[in-house]
């Protein structure tokens, strides 16, 4: 397993380099201009100077190599320095990947955004899983029952109705009409006591639920299908013949086996958490990574978009590997050599 993991990681390096080049090239070719969104009152000469000051004067290969150096060498070094409080080499003059819009290091922006995205989007993922698994189990166990039919209907609705709609409906009901929950997420809020914790819960409810519903509807279908697959397996009959309680048959034998593919799907979905739920973050102003990416795209903040997309690519490659490894751990039939 260890050899397998190391081999996969080594293979990931050229893959990621190719991905980074493609991302860089595509964004470079895209006809967007960092000064495009500035007021028209800024004259062209000034725009040209701004572009030069952003480093756009240099040819493409140089800019790509610079970015590679900044991303793969300078930024990790900087992170190490921050974590361990040491200084390595000439840290003062080390160039970091700079955002064009904020003129600050991109990685710092990402680190700053991480907490709210992980809290809100991550929590919604967890809640989604917690909702999806029991629904999937019961739906499959009582296939074609009323519960299953209703569950199927809700899943279809949850999956097909976009989050910007559910989000808006929730805001209109719980914020505008009832006034129970805040419609705008306060990212500066700090949990210090019970009251502030309660406020944090209140401001998280709506975005978390909107996303959880969406995640749950997908996962519950997956869970149901996997359960149905396993329920008809012979070993389930064996378990019943052993005289096990139905609960034990379901939870120990069927559920555990059904979870193998579901866990893989869950692992594969984790990079999406980091990607943030762009639309939901936008609606509730949970200004996390998704919103950062959108602002970057709108403002043609190319270094920010490049870095974020590349980090997502890294996460996707990484979690594909994680999913494979988890599969290997959960399913004794699979062995990686």
């Amino acid at each position: 397993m260890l050899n397998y993991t190391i081999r996969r990681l080594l293979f990931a390096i050229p893959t990621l380099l190719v991905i980074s080049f493609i991302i860089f090239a595509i964004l470079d070719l895209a006809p967007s201009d960092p000064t495009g969104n500035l007021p028209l009152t800024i004259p062209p000469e000034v725009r040209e100077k701004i572009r030069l000051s952003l480093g756009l004067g240099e040819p493409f290969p140089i800019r790509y190599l610079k970015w590679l150096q900044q991303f793969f060498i300078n930024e990790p070094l900087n992170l190490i320095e921050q974590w361990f409080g040491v200084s390595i080499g000439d840290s003062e003059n080390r160039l970091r990947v700079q955002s064009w819009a904020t003129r600050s290091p991109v990685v710092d922006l990402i680190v700053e955004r991480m907490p709210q995205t992980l809290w809100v989007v991550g929590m919604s993922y967890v809640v989604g899983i917690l909702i999806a698994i029991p629904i999937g189990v019961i739906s499959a166990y009582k296939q074609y029952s009323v519960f299953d039919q209703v569950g199927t209907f809700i899943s279809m609705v949850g999956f097909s109705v976009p989050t910007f709609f559910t989000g808006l409906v929730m805001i209109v009901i719980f914020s505008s009409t009832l006034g129970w929950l805040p419609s705008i997420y306060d990212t500066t809020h700090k949990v210090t006591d019970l009251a502030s914790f309660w406020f944090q819960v209140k401001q998280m409810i709506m975005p978390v639920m909107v996303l959880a519903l969406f995640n749950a509807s997908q996962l519950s279908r997956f869970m149901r299908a996997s359960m149905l697959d396993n329920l008809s397996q012979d070993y389930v009959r064996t378990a019943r013949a052993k005289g096990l309680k139905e609960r034990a048959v379901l939870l120990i034998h069927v559920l555990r086996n059904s979870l193998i593919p579901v866990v893989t799907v869950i692992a594969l979905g984790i990079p999406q958490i980091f990607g943030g739920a762009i639309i939901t973050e936008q609606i509730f102003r949970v200004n996390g990574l998704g919103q950062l990416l959108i602002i970057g795209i709108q403002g043609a903040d190319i270094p920010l978009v490049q870095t974020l997309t590349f980090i997502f690519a890294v996460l996707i490659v990484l979690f594909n590997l994680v999913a494979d490894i988890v599969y290997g751990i959960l399913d004794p039939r699979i062995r990686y050599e």
Partner: protein
Amino acid sequence: MKKALLCSAITASFFAGTALAERGSDGQLNIIYWQAASILNPYLSGGTKDIEASSMVIEPLAHYDEKGTMVPNLVDEIPTVENGGVSEDLKSITWKLSEGLKWSDGSPVTAADVAFTADYCLHPEGGCQQASNFTDVESVEAIDDSTVKVNFSVAKPFPYGPFVGAQAPVIQKAQFENCMGAKAPECTDANFGPIGTGPFVVTEFKANDVVALEANPNFRDPAKPAFASVVFKGGGDAASAARSVLETGEFDYAWNLQVEPEILSKMAAAGKGTVVSSFGTSVERLMVNMTNPDPALGDKRATIEGGPHPFLTDPAVRTALSKAIDREILVEVGYGEAGQPTCNVLPAPAIYASTANDACLGQDIDAAKKLLDDAGWVPGSDGVREKDGVRLSILYQTSTNSVRQATQALVKQWWAEIGVETELRNIDASVFFGGDQSSPDTFQKFFADIEMYTNNFDGTDPENYMANWACKEIPSPQNQWLGDNMPRYCNAAYDALVAEMSTTAKLEDRAELAKKMNDMLMQEGAMIPLIHRGGVSAHANTLEGVRMNEWDSELWNVADWKRAK
């Protein structure tokens, strides 16, 4: 004795609580800008949101008030030729700082800071985004601690570019000294938390998300600001920003509510807030291409060398196109409070606004048809007018934006009524307004017959703005398509007026010239103005003191804002 002390303490606190104005007595002010602030240094960002967010912290020497009149801010009076502040040759202006000004860190504000600000922006490697405010500045010198003199290389009849308005605030030399030129972007701490003279100081800055501020303890007016802290939240969209003020009441002030007018008025009906608007110089206009954009011309496409436009050079066609448009309906559909029909490309301030073109305000389809008939444009078999084999078929482009697309659709319909065929096109704003040389879709290249967008000018002086339509401003391959004369309008008489204005100092004379230029552009039909656009914002009914301002930052007087009692 103890009792008496206690009593007096209670009375004191009682009076303090009811005193009319006391710094920090009104709690927190919540402002929402749906475009989040990226940076608080306006010299490194041209974005309105960034300029306005920073305007609570750093200030210019003088502001424009909501009527466009200059008001002293860090000075006691505005320098003019009359009071000797502006030299007779119009080549220098001398500002005198008010007494006792302090930065929020307690250090005194000096003329050296003002001079440094100019050096900072004029540094050739800094990529200063407000450089246009410092056009023709030769040097800025600190005469003494409180006197600063700006020298221009040419006569400047309107010398109020530097240090007037939110785009050109004064920054602290001590803080930015090591951030000149190429190093400017590296000073993240300074750019995210400039030390200023404004009513608030930054306590926390999360780029593209939120700014937290608190009252500046060293603000020059000890009674202000009324609010102890400000949260300046960003993100989301205009409609939900409007909702947070008008419906849920979570926020006190929401900026730039480009929302369908109908939705906005429904939200306002909840009674929690008020929609406010004000008009500056923004005009949504149709640019008429005087040159031929035919792709067959290759490199000469849309240039003077490519020859004149096959039919838009006919004044009758341009006038007819304008007459066919019902501007009232356009306002109603797309702008509501935020728009007024206009027939001028220079609609404000009042002294510059011409009334000579108001005939265009009413729609007149019949008159438009008659004009075309008389000019010999007769409907062909498909209803599209033609003359000598030239069909009145227009490619009409603009940026992607729902209001603009609605406008396009309406205009297309009206033009169809008078026998003009229209093909619509929309281009993503970052491409359309981006200056990418390789893209054929920029507004400068103008590979279309008609294009629509909004333009305006900063401050109140239209000199530079009106100079946009001089012959030398025509974009072409020779100048890398840089230039603001999109219609490729070229008229020696107009160029003469531009030259005259650059040497005229007296306000009334300048106004006459500006009006004349505006009328010339309108009557020759180089542009077809549609809507005079204003800003629309909303504030909670509990918030007092908002004086919505299009000439400066909307938050220009945030020090005066207070909670209604």
